[in-house]
């Protein structure tokens, strides 16, 4: 039964996206109301499937299901296998994804009413859901990458939902650059794994390692994968794009940066956990990154005075903690933390428009009296230090400056090269002109 549940769960979104694309390309007029009614059934159907699958997986734990479809294509010795793993991790994440996307679909029905981009929004969210399901159940890096990319692309396109304004587009560009930089990690990790282990299968790799395969070189797979997880999770040093990404409609910010997209970072690590367990040094690294990011984000976040950026930093800091939990080996707990955190943040994002009135109506908040915040650790600093730290935190500890320097460093050879190319081109044209004139 789980088998058929799973098949439906992964193919229905494809079918659904195909339908939407069909509607778009045939220019059939689909009224907003019909679309949202269809969405209602669709999300209910998906949640039911995901719930069923999660329950079945839970009942049969710790064993899990491996599902193989035919190979997609083969090149030489390599086959792109459509192989999936249905375990508690994947099933839980898929359930979370379908449930929250369902909530967001319902929310957007009214929120994006009369909006010209409603269809686009729905299509992108549907793509997100499909991407998430693929990521949840993929058995290899190769396959996971497809879902990973879909999530990244939809995220960028939704940041630039208001693409007629410049700021959303600039911030979407920032996001896509961060994503691409880290996506290289996945590709590099996959290439490395293929090279040394001839597979990227999450189930096979740990068993290979158990049997003493490979060597010190294998630690690089983990390094690449850790790197790959950073952009989506908004961990250091890839965290300045996330607060800037709050440009789309509120529900899309909620679902991506409060809930589903940010937790893909820790999800990837959890997927790889059996591998990571063989390399304590990697776990230490993951823990360090998480810890640093958590402290960084909470310091920066507490100086932020707008609802969404503040939530973004709060999210980064909790995800940092999840990294630490993973590093310490509390994988089950980390999964729980992910689920509970995603739910809370989605709710907070969706309700963020109430803030001003909530404060104003709060009987504890009085006029002309500064709101008393509870004791917190910045008070240990002397006033002078506190002010200095505050300013640094306000500017995100100049992270953009440092990454800018770093990128400039990387780009320097490129610039030199381009200069030479330009000179060569100039020379070339002159030569050509000379030759032509002679004729």
């Amino acid at each position, binding site marked *: 039964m789980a088998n058929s549940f799973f098949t439906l769960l992964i193919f229905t979104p494809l079918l659904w996206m195909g339908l939407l694309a069909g509607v778009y390309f045939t220019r059939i007029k689909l009224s907003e109301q019909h679309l949202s009614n269809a969405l209602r059934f669709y999300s209910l159907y998906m949640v039911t499937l995901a719930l069923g699958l999660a329950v079945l997986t839970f009942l049969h734990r710790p064993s899990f299901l491996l599902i193989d479809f035919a190979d997609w294509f083969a090149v030489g010795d390599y086959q792109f296998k459509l192989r999936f793993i249905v375990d508690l991790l994947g099933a839980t994440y898929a359930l979370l994804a379908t*449930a929250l996307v369902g*909530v967001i679909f*319902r*929310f957007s029905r*009214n*929120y994006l*009413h*009369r909006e010209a981009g409603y269809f686009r929004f729905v299509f992108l969210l549907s793509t997100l859901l499909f991407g998430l399901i693929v990521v949840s159940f993929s058995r290899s890096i190769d396959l996971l990458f497809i879902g990973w990319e879909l999530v990244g692309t939809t995220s960028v396109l939704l940041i630039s939902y*208001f693409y007629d304004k*410049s700021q*959303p587009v*600039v*911030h979407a560009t920032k996001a896509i650059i961060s994503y691409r930089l880290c996506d290289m990690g996945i590709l590099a990790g996959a290439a490395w794994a293929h090279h040394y282990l001839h597979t990227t299968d999450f189930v096979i790799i740990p068993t290979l390692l158990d049997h003493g395969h490979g060597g010190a070189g294998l630690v690089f797979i983990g390094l690449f994968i850790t790197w790959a997880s950073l952009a989506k999770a908004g961990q250091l040093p890839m965290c300045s794009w996330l607060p800037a990404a*709050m*440009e789309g*409609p*509120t529900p899309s910010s909620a679902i991506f940066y409060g809930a589903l997209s940010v937790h893909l970072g820790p999800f990837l690590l959890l997927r790889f956990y059996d591998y990571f367990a063989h390399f304590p040094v990697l776990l230490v690294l993951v823990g360090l990154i998480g810890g640093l990011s958590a402290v960084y984000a909470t310091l920066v*976040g*507490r*100086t932020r005075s*707008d*609802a*969404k950026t*503040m939530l973004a*930093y*709060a999210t980064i800091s*909790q995800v940092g*903690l999840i990294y630490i939990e993973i590093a310490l080996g509390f994988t089950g707990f980390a999964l729980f933390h992910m*689920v*509970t*955190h995603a*739910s*809370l943040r989605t*709710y907070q994002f*969706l309700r*963020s*428009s*109430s*803030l*001003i*009135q*909530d*404060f*104003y109506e*709060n*009987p504890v*908040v*009085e*006029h*002309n009296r*500064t709101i008393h*915040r*509870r004791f*917190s650790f910045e008070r240990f600093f002397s*006033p002078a230090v506190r*002010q200095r730290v*505050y300013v640094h935190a*306000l*500017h995100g500890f100049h992270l953009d*400056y440092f990454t800018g320097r770093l990128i400039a460093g990387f780009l320097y050879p490129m610039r030199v090269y381009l200069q030479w190319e330009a000179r060569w081109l100039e020379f070339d044209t002159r030569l050509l002109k000379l030759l032509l004139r002679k004729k």
Partner: protein
Amino acid sequence: MLQALIDSLRPKLPIQNPLHSFVHNNILQTFEHLDFHEAVGEAGKLYRARPYWETFRYTQLYADKKMTDADIFRAIDHYLGHYAPMPSLSLLGLSPKEYFYRLMFSELSFNDDETQPKVEDQSLWEHCQEKVQGETLVLSRSRTFLRGKDYWEKYYDESYAISLQPLAIRLISSYLDQGQSFWPNPFRAQGFWNFFLYDLEVQTPYAAGWLKTLTQKAATYRGQSSAQVIEAELRLTGLPESLWEDYLLEVLFDLKGWSGMVNKLETEPWQAPVKAPGIRLVDYLAALVLMDRAMDEFHAKAHSIDLSLLYGRLAPLELRSFQLALALYQVTLTFKLPPRWMRDHSAAQLLQMIDEVDVAEHRDRVRLWHEAYEHHFHREAIEALRGRQSAETSAGGRPYAQILFCIDDREESLRRHTEEVDDAVETFGVVGFFGIDMNFVSVKNKRPIAQCPPVITPSRIIHEVSVSDDHAFQRWNLLRGTSDLGLYYNTRTLFRGFLATLILGVASLIPMTIQVFFPRHNRVLRRNLRDLFGKEPETELEVLSTDPGVGYSYSEQAQIVTAVLRMCGTRDLSRLVVLLAHGSSSNNNPFRQAYGCGACGGNAGIPNSRAYAQMANDPFVRAEVEKLGYRIPDDTFFIGGFHDTCTDEILFLNHKDLPSTHREDFERLKTHLKEAAQRNAFERCQRFSSFDESTGVAGAIGHVRERAHDIAQPRPEYGHSSNALAIVGRRTLTRGLFMNRRSFLLSYDWSQDPDGSVLRQVVIGGIPVAVNINMDYYFSAVDNDNFGCGSKLPLNMTSLLGVMTGSQSDLRIGLARQMVEIHEPIRNLTVVEAPLARVKELFDGHARLRNLLYNHWMRLAVIDPETGKWWMFSQSDFQEISFDGPALKEFTSSLDLLKSHETSDFAEIHHGE
């Protein structure tokens, strides 16, 4: 000197309050001393906004027959009556009328594009070319570069919004923050300027690009005051002092919302939601100027440009011979001129003509369209009222119930439906704070809330006190407040956030699911939960007091009671008098205050109607009333009521004290009001495209309630959208007239007001409010991105003061797109039924009204009941109106009209027959 300069900038800045106390204002209230068109033109330049709708909207309306050629010609006449046509008009050989008419339908565009046009008439094209061979013309709408911004943005792909503003916004929003961030800004004591300098000092080692220039500049100013820095920088620009004001305004208007807020919090610190930080406009301005200058210097250096050549230089819109020829070609075709018309004119003459046509194209064309459109609607409205003043009060004798509504345009429909449902009810419109200028303190919240129009400073504090045991309630209330606040901060920090997430995370799925999927149940659940833990106690208002500043004495109460009754001109009080205040419930809506009762400062009017009823029922007060020469019959009972304009629920506040003799009447009234409210909901639903019409009247009430409680609903109601009229007069003038919720209705009976003092109260109390609302909607509708707030979807609450778009932006002003999308921007037409001389005297004698009227921020028509003549205020005086319009369509009830999908704004409702 600089201080004076800065003070002269203040009136130009946006005047919006922090959102928690949003009130509708004419956002250009400080420009009211100018003629409307001049003011919007000037403000349009400052705000970089369009002062009227897009032209295609008007041409669309013309195509839809929403205005006619007659309206257009009248607009042109009106214009010509005041302004001379352009000097070089004779060149074209057209009469001014023809010229403007053709201009309005033209598609001229003179610009410095290089694109090759599609030329159909080759010989004309050649002729044009040869006429202006070798000529150039700098159009007079070219702007002057006061600073580099426009230049960098145009030629170097720089964007201030991306590079410069984030720093400014980050600093100012952190400094002004009222408690949204966990870590309060530690620089409050030192002032913004020192914060700014310190910030740059700390940033110095990490600064690159223009920021580096800024930190270097700032380092040279250490120890100097902000005013000195502004002056030094202004001198450095080399701009003449006459241009300083323009320069500073341009800089301030880059971040107009924040600038306005800084000014607001400095000049009116009590408007702060929690506590105003010590902020001075001069500090903030110095920071902006320094940043702006640093950016200029940085770019100048990077691109080797001499700034002194740039400043004060014209940003030329230059037409060269090719474009000039194209302009001539366009002119010839647009104005349908004979092919050889320009033969005898010199090139210089032609150039002047082109420039003048260009000016008219940009300034006058839309203006004429707008005037024509407004005129059409105003005509329609006046025609609809014609012949109604003769109608006599329908039912003689004493009605069994009277209802005092707010003057709000949203109550127009409810009044109409009430009268249709129950013929024997008389309705009135009075300003909905019922003359009670109080600060109200409820049992729920210790914060005093001003329950009166924003122009009035509340004179009293009135407390709500519990009469039953409220121990449990207060404890629950306090606990809820503390936990809300605690949860807000502690879910966002690291360790506490961790614990809170673990405990509350999954649990938050429950309220989220309920709120998203079952909005209507959410409210019921919430109420039940509250009742379970701490039921709201029975309360009373402490209206009576002799302490200064607290409560009113008997005689003061009597004055309030009498004033309101006199204002609405009741001849004969009925046994039941209902004071129907209003407010609006909505969820997750940052603009909630904009939907409330404008006369109660955007709050719900419950305390006011309650207090009024309490006063008027008090026998001691009644005795005092009698001393004032007004008699309230002994069997009259006042009931405080409340109408929720979003859910269309009607609430009665003190019906428990009702004598048993009145029970039966009250039950009748209650049922009828309920029925009327349902019909009202149905009428409102016509504007909501998500309403399923097949569900009928019963479905409508469900639909509007769902809207109100849905956290995902950006349009809980459409508020004052489509408001355009204010009618001051007896109800006989408007009873039975369908007005499509477009009119404020102010009750006034001229025959009971021998000295005009009541008219004064009514007009001064109501009309400025109506104009404010009208203008707020006007500007947000004509250019929502620049005068308004833009789309609601990406809004981001900030500093507890207002909203930004996306992750960071200017503090937005005005109303959101979703609130005004169906609004038609038309200036308010006020119709007053009173002797002309009295109205004239009133408007001439009141500073703001005089400005509004003589500078055309509103229109005024007067029905003189003594002479039976109708007057309309035209350019500077009243002119008699003549009528020629067709009779109105007739319907048996508003419901019939709605079901027949009638689109006109006015219709006659004849019921009963």
